[in-house]
């Protein structure tokens, strides 16, 4: 038990990332409100990004940009995780934008953002084509 706690403390960034992911996941799954679902999705993605960023960061090393000529390989960090985080953020932003516009459309039609309520409302409508 003690070892587990110590291991978690030593890797607190990763532990926090996984906690964020799980919080976001449960919000996305279990929250009725669409906007809160979206916030959950963003928290979930943030968890993944934090995980990547903390993996990519090594204390004392610099970004691999040559300023005063090349030093040794040991002086630089791997730039790929940072690049992945950036790509991931772009994807996450565009998905959020699409989902928000969908929410607007849903709200205009049903005047609520609660997905369960919308589902009940739509049941009374005529089905299918």
């Amino acid at each position, binding site marked *: 038990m003690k070892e587990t706690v110590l291991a978690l403390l030593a890797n607190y960034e990763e532990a926090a990332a996984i906690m964020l992911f799980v919080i976001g996941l449960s919000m*996305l799954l279990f929250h009725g409100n669409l906007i809160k679902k979206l916030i959950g999705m963003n928290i979930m993605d943030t*968890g993944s990004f934090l995980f990547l960023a903390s993996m990519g960061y090594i204390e004392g090393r610099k970004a691999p940009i040559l300023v005063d000529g090349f030093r040794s390989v040991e002086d630089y960090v791997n730039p790929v995780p940072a690049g992945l985080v950036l790509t991931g953020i772009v994807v996450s932003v565009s998905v959020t934008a699409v989902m928000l516009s969908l929410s607007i459309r849903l709200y205009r039609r049903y005047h609520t953002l609660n997905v369960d309520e919308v589902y009940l409302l739509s049941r009374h409508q005529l089905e299918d084509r």
Partner: protein
Amino acid sequence: MDFIRNFPLFTIVLSLFSSVLCMMLDGRRAKRYTVCYECFLIALSGAVLWYVSVTGEAFTYVMGEFPAPWGNEIRAGILEALLALTFLVILLCSVLGGWRFLLIDVEHSKINLYFTLINLLTAALMALIWTNDIFTGYVFLEILTLASCGILIVREIGRTTLAAVRYMVLNLLGSGLFLLGVVLLYSLTGHLLMVPMREAVAEIIAADGGAITVTFSLAVLTIGLGIKSGLFPFYFWMPDTYGTATPTSAAILSALVSKAYIFLLFKIYWRVIGIDVFQELPIHDLLFGLGILGMLFGSVSAIRANSIHRMLAFSSAAQIGYIYMGLGMGGPMGYVTALFQLIAHSVTKSLLFLTTPRLARVSGDSLLFQNLQGSGTRDRSAGIFFTLCSFSMVGIPIFAGFSAKLFFAVAAVETGKLGVLFATMLALAISSVLNALYFLRTVIRIYTAGRGGADISAPRIYAEAHNDIDAGEPVPETRTLSGRLSYWIPALILTGINLFLGLFSWVTVDVIQRGLMMFA
């Protein structure tokens, strides 16, 4: 000759370019352009298939000339080329066959945007098929999700919006899990390209306790893609999604989008984990079990469905269960059959989704079973094609569905495990009976004249509104020559492929086997 090596990249990049171009064209021109462009892409992927068959080995296209552990790669072998070709043919047929309904369902000023999305979707499909880099896989996975959401909500009725919201929420859940899986695997292996990843994974597995970390990452990936493709407990989003979309979208979503996710998962199992390692992991058996459960529960839900689209959607869940069962069965034949089933189901289900709206059209625009009574006699061609596809789904010989089921049985025997053999045979038997129950019941229904007033009155009301046609005749826009052709050509092509898969199944299986040999 070596110029052909550029073609896989062209299929991706030109599709992205076309999607921008379609924004600038008007609706009809965008459609014409897309049809011509899809034909061009079919020629390109056909050339790639020919090239890799002749040279007998897969080739890697290195982007930006950065060699293997760095950079980004495209890899083309027989299997990828075959899938690209099949997917593009089905895409083209779906666009042609659903065009008349697209004009009804979509606001005319927005039709060009629909084709923008279709081209974007093509780019994503092609990228998922060709890519050799797991993060590129993630990016195009999201593009595919957004494009498929777009082609779903383009039909502006309330239920589509709701269906799109549910579809997106589940898909985002799946994408999130997939991203986490990719990140975990990256932190374990230090690579994003699939082949170096596999070498690293082999080392990790050999080390003490390494199997748990790999299994966990792989489980997260599998659940993510399982949700997106409709693996057993996660198939409940399907009926609303497929049931409310415009026919072209329904065909594409059920036949191509979910299959692309499955192929990505398949690629990860083969290239990232390595198939020998994968067969030792518990996920393997789990997939087998979930696949069988999907086959049974999907079919039971389909029997209970009250409308024909819901039935088809649940039947998709059952058929995707077959694919996962093949993936979990193991042994070379299991994987070959899973891929064969993937192609067979795509071909059949896309035509079914293009046919049912025509049956509905002559039944007062209703997809409910009670109103569809006798619709096969009112629109004969739709009735015939629906019947043929149903035969394939049930597994009647000479059709693709039969060959798939036969190969599943053969694969189960070849695994040499008694438990797998017993479970597969039982599942195949029960599932076939259930399939027959709901598909043949529907075939009988569409050829039985309805009893009671409501059933027959639906088409009559429609006929009174359009005085120029007799009761029970197909609606005007499908009666013209071009209207007939736009349905007959794709329907004939898809039925032809279906029959080819059924009658000459060994040709396809041989191609898939050769593809798998150069796949890893």
